[in-house]
């Protein structure tokens, strides 16, 4: 049963190696004459001001968090969906109950204003 994975085990490294080859070719072909002006941070010609590490807003974390919870939810639901054809009605309803609980979480986030991008 490892057999279908062999293809993927080849394809994913190839997906890295092929672009890496292009970049390697670039190493051979392209000129390399770095100087401080060229390497300075690009901001359309302005001098950069202040620290690079600007304080990000906490909203990014909230979005990542809700995504994580829904991702896990999908993990639980995918086997349920695969087995769906063989399930009794009450088992399907249990899955729906699961979805509804999570939808309640989304509703809470919405009500609290956690989904607003301000």
């Amino acid at each position, binding site marked *: 049963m490892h057999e279908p994975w062999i293809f993927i085990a080849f394809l994913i490294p190839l997906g890295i190696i092929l*672009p890496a080859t292009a970049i390697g070719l670039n190493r051979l072909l*392209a000129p390399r004459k770095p100087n401080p002006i060229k390497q300075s941070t690009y901001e359309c010609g302005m001098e950069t001001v202040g620290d690079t590490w600007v304080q990000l807003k906490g909203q990014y974390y909230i979005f*990542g968090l809700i995504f994580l919870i829904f991702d896990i939810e999908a993990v639980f639901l995918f086997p349920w969906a695969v087995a769906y054809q063989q399930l009794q009605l009450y088992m399907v309803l249990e899955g729906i109950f699961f979805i509804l609980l999570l939808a309640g979480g989304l509703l809470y986030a919405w009500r609290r204003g956690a989904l607003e991008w301000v």
Partner: protein
Amino acid sequence: MGDPFTLIADFLRDLLLGFGLDPGLTTAILKFVGAAVTATIALTLTFFTIWLERKLIARFQDRLGPNRVGPYGLFQTVADFAKLLTKEVLVPEGADRSVFMIAPLLVVMSVVGLWAVVPFAPTLFGSDINVGVLYLVSIGSVGTLGIMMAGLSSNNKYALLGAFRTVAMMLSYAVPMILTLLIPTMLAGSMGLTKIVEAQNPVWFVILSPIAAFIFYISSLAEVGRTPFDLMEAESEIVAGFHIEYSGISFGMFFVAEFLHAFTIAVLTVTLFFGGWQGPGAEAFPILGFVYFLIKTAILYFVIIWIRATFPRLRIDTINSISWKILTPLALAAVIFTAIIDKLTPGDGWARVPLHLAGSVILIGLTLIAFRAYARSIRKQSEGSGKSLAQTSEAGS
């Protein structure tokens, strides 16, 4: 005659076994050749799709587009590639060198990896893993990581901001995408893409669940960052987004990944919702199935370019609101509707279409009513407080 793919594979296998190779090794070599061909074709295809897209966009805008290099400017992309190849790759000062160089590779890898599980024809597919749908989700999202690495390592605050805005958008749209993928899984009873295509034999899933197909299409468009969703390169706001410090071929790799991903979206939507290679006579003659597949993909790809040529860029708060407040609840409702309806309607094929369609119509109707109520509440608010409509809608719901 009708099935050249098996023919070639068998010929190669016999040839290698004729050399006296071990059967296990032969399989491995065949798989490697297949993977190499897939990756090469996928990456070479971008030469063509970039040309096609530029040409089509030009026509939409009443221009000629590339027309100097080769017939119809067909080799324009090759020339561009050669130019990028001979340009210096700059690494900005204070950048995190290794992470900076790895990021574009990861982005390309995540797109090429998607091609592993797509069945192009009844006998032509890379690998038929039984978790294909989840594989698409997980490999596709690795690109998010690449973008994040690009932003973190560039030592540029605009790259950082652009990367994080992109990541926030991609995370938002991954939620409805994953949820809608439950629907084809449920209807086919399997996560393997070949099984999903086979299950669409009389009825395509787009007929059973048009809402799911729509949500999948839109949210994958957002995953790539095509024009209505191209926050990542909102040049008026954040210079050029996460790839601002990239130059030469490193930038080219982001470019290749984006265009290949756009094409891959068409491929995936066809596979999951538009019957893949299904069509009259496709099972007897696999090559016919491949042709059907290409035609469907071409149509959906054209629609993607059309959308790009038509819509302006959305604002960041609007983009995230569309995902969280419209697509995600709609996807949840669609999953629940499909689960209940499909359990209640016994039978196969066209017999289950009417109820499913009725469910979709009810759902669309409910969505429209909700929109109407929302618009009315906004209007009432603005009349009540005497503010202009624009101000209130900017303040959010």
